[in-house]
């Protein structure tokens, strides 16, 4: 019997579907990873409440204040509960006490003024840790008001269950 000699060719794998999928994945990850929340400090353990709704309209000007604690690996507070810190980038220190943060608020208000933004239109986004004494949060609001900020947003995570 005589067979027809088949020509053995090195078949090239069709890459197109794979590339399609990989592009899809990239698109997915770019959308999902939001760089918006980079101002949020992950050391702050926010309180939870189902009523906390992400804002529908993006606020124009926001000043984030992260008020929290340094915690160890098991989540316990290092230091005293009555002494939370403001985590702030752009100053000469990395963390400030509430009282130390007062001049920074005035400085921020001045900077907004120089940019031509009225501090009254800036929303102070207050991300306070769930264990911070309420009085200190109120002091922070008071200091912000003294620095002529008027709008506030108290942040919480939405309960999922």
């Amino acid at each position, binding site marked *: 019997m005589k067979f027809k000699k088949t020509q053995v060719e090195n078949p090239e794998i069709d890459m197109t579907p794979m590339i399609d999928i990989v*592009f899809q994945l*990239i698109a997915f*990850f770019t959308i999902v*990873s939001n760089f918006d929340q980079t101002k949020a400090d992950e050391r702050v353990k926010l309180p939870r409440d189902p*009523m*906390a709704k992400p804002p529908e309209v993006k606020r124009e000007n926001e000043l984030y204040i992260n008020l929290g604690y340094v915690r160890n690996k098991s989540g316990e507070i290092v230091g005293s509960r009555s002494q939370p810190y403001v985590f702030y980038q752009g100053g000469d220190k990395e963390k400030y006490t509430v009282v130390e943060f007062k001049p920074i608020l005035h400085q921020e208000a001045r900077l907004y003024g120089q940019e031509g933004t009225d501090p009254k239109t800036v929303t102070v986004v207050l991300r306070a*840790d769930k264990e911070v004494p*309420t*009085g200190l949060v109120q002091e922070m609001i008071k200091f912000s008001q003294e620095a002529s900020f008027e709008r506030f947003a108290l*942040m919480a995570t939405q309960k999922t269950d």
Partner: protein
Amino acid sequence: MAPMIDVVFQLLIFFMLTLKIIEPEGDFNINMPIGQSGGPPDMSITPIEVQLIANEDGTLRSLNFGTRSLGTGDAAFQALNEEILRQIGEPGNPQAKDTEATIDADYGLNYEYVIRAVGAVTGRVNPETKQIDRYIEKVKFAPPKPPAT
């Protein structure tokens, strides 16, 4: 083709590694007239006052609505939510727009209880429709009372 695939994989890995799963966070959409509000208070509307009393360690000792204690724990916040609903009649009542609630919390109280009280005062998530029913939008904080040192 091969270099492009290389780069695309690099990108893919970069985005996968930088991905942080963050819980959605939001605020309460409240007006916060802090301090002395201008003008005489409107007498036609019963003011709502919520008082939060703290233990030494910052936990909640008692949640008071007006002069009545609602207890502590989840049930207390649920009761507060129901009391508020009774006050305003129904969700979205136009009169509720002018109602102002004052939250008077102890200085050392954990902030989480204040947020829960704010949540209970501002409304609830309707269990049937999963929509938010708004109760009160104006929430005021009583001035802080620093502990005597």
